[in-house]
């Protein structure tokens, strides 16, 4: 997964500015930045949902996105949607996935319009794991989940990472990033300003990240 | 207080819209009434109707016919005979939207001619029906009878009835009756006989005008 000298602007607003990034396979990468830093646009560019004005993006066949909000068709049931996703990815692990994300069995066959935000997030996660992807992009994957849910999902993502999936996680929750990621890239004004390697996955490293983020988010940091 | 005011907004809007609707309906009646004799008015309304009816002129024409029924009952029940003057407009509009609509011509030969007292308009509509349905004998026959009985125009009656014989499936009795009309040898009895026959073809609620005409003919005969 690689981008080289990528630029993207919306009218006069330069969202991504000459950004180059190389993600090592089999590792978990974090993207950290203030609002408007360009994280979501970068993710969309990687997924082919947004086209860059300039630069090269290595197009990937086996890449899946877990979007920021749980976007699901509300008239379908979780089971139908997941069955569809598995059929597209040529897998047959519908029930295993539903159990993995701890979606209660009595909700499997109910239309998703009756789901809470947390339940929708769980089914979104299950959808993103349907094809055992080689590359997994997580955009705020813990939003809408309670503390127990967050802990469970972190365990699940760690397990997936160990199975060889390359993960790119974008989050404002620094502690989640530190627990899962091997490298965290800090973004500001459309550029990657600093890449920090996480070795111990400790609270101390989380504090360092917080400080670096505050620094790069300050007005004069880029001058 | 603000909440109280809000509660009144919706009913008020409904009342205002209803009043507006009635106003538009009245204006529409007034418009057709004012312009009934002007041909451009009929042409104009036909275009507007076609535009509104779009892909479903059939059902629009059906609704116009229901309007005719309601006008008839309003005139009969509420004793407002002046309402009958709208019948021609509604029948013409229905005919223009669906030129083959049989019921339009049936009502033209009964209600329009005998209740609204508009035999000229009835004959004009039936003439259009003759073009649209060239195999139906009723239209020229009814038109011819109206010309003879109400317009007292035997030349026109001859013209119209002559074409009855050309039409397929014309009953022998009708041909006999038509020939008697053509020979000007028909009697009041023939006319009463024909009107009694017509009475059977018209629903019970719409027979008032024809019954009156039969009574009048019987009176003349005596």
């Amino acid at each position, binding site marked *: 997964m690689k981008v080289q000298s990528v630029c993207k602007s919306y009218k006069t607003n330069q969202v991504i500015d000459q950004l180059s990034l190389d993600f090592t396979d089999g590792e978990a990468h974090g993207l950290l930045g203030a609002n408007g830093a360009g994280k979501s646009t970068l993710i969309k560019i990687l997924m082919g949902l947004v086209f860059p004005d300039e630069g090269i993006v290595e197009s990937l066949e086996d890449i899946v996105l877990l979007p920021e909000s749980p976007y699901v068709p509300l008239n379908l049931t979780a089971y139908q949607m997941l069955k*569809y996703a598995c*059929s597209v990815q040529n897998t047959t692990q519908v029930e295993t996935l539903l159990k993995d994300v701890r979606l209660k069995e009595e909700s499997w066959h109910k239309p998703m319009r009756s789901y809470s935000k947390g339940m929708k997030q769980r089914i979104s996660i299950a959808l993103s794991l349907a094809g055992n992807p080689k590359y997994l992009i997580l955009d705020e994957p813990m939003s809408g989940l309670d503390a127990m849910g967050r802990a469970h999902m972190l365990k699940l993502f760690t397990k997936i990472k160990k199975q060889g999936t390359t993960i790119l996680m974008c989050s404002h929750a620094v502690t989640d990033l530190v627990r899962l990621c091997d490298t965290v890239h800090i973004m500001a004004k459309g550029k990657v300003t600093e890449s920090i390697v996480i070795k111990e996955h400790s609270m101390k490293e989380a504090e360092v990240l917080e400080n670096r983020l505050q620094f790069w988010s300050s007005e004069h940091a880029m001058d | 207080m603000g909440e109280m005011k809000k509660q009144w907004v919706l009913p008020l809007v409904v009342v205002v819209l209803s009043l507006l609707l009635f106003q538009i309906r009245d204006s529409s009646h007034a418009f057709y009434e004012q312009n009934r004799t002007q041909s451009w008015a009929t042409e104009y309304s036909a275009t507007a109707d*076609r535009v509104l009816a*779009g892909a479903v*002129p059939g059902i629009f024409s059906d609704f116009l016919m229901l309007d005719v029924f309601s006008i008839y009952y309003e005139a009969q029940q509420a004793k407002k005979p002046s309402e009958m003057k709208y019948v021609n407009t509604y029948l013409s509009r229905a005919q223009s939207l669906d030129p083959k609509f049989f019921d339009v011509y049936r009502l033209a030969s009964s209600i329009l001619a005998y209740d609204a007292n508009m035999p000229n308009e009835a004959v004009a509509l039936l003439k259009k029906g003759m073009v649209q349905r060239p195999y139906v004998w009723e239209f020229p026959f009814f038109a011819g009878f109206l010309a003879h009985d109400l317009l007292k125009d035997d030349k026109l009656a001859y013209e119209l009835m002559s074409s009855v014989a050309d039409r397929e499936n014309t009953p022998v009795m009708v041909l006999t009756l038509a020939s008697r009309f053509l020979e000007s040898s028909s009697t009041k009895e023939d006319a009463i006989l024909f009107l009694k026959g017509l009475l059977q073809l018209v629903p019970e609620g719409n027979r008032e005008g024809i019954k009156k005409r039969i009574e009048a003919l019987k009176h003349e005969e005596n």
Partner: protein
Amino acid sequence: MQWIKLAHLTLFELWQNRTFKTLLTVALLTPLLAVGLSSLFLYDIGKVYVDVVAAMAQLLAVVFFIFLVVTLLSRDIFDRIVYVFLTPPMSRRDYYIGRFLGIVAVFVLLLLVLLLSSVLGAWLYLDGLSDMYQSGYKWNYLGQLVFFNFFQYISILGFIFFVVSWSSGNAETMLFTLAMLIFSWIFPPVLAALQSPDVMKDTPEFVVYFLQWIYDVIPHLRGADITLSIAHGGSIGYQDTFLYVAEHILYSVIFFALGLAVFKRRDL
């Protein structure tokens, strides 16, 4: 062939939509309405029955496309549900084709329910009347009516896919679709009226030429002629049927292809 899977899913998605179920109920109840209305008439009872079915077919189609299809596609794109679908190996082309065919399948289902219920209603009601009151009704004429109605709206569906490819929101898509429906609804009769000799003599030549050109180009919802002909027991000839179907498929394909070309290049 990923689009087949999405078409199948679309069928489920619309089938489970409450609005669609309401439309199906209306389609099932249409014969009751048709019987109720036609029983008020004197002679052309069969004609009025067919008129009601034709009007309901139009109404159901308009509601289906405006409230179900436009909403479905708008939610996909503007509420970003499309992110779930556009995961490799599903391409944008597969997504567009899958959604289109899924919607077509559901529309066919709706029309079939309307057709079957109307034929059943006619069998129970009209067959008991004498020929004089049936206005030349035959069950296959109702089939023709539904068949023509289907193709009318296939071109509208192509147009909706075109609008969705570039519009910036649900309201915009709905507005353009409604505008297209209204335009196709009123323009042919307006033009027909304008072409009458009385009006033509006062119209500048270039305006007449321009109007004729537009008339030739736009999709014609010529249900008016077809419905009237069928309602009075007249069948539509093979050549007219072929030309009609070809015209609407062509519009649909052109709009769909344009829409797909734009959609492939748009940021989501």
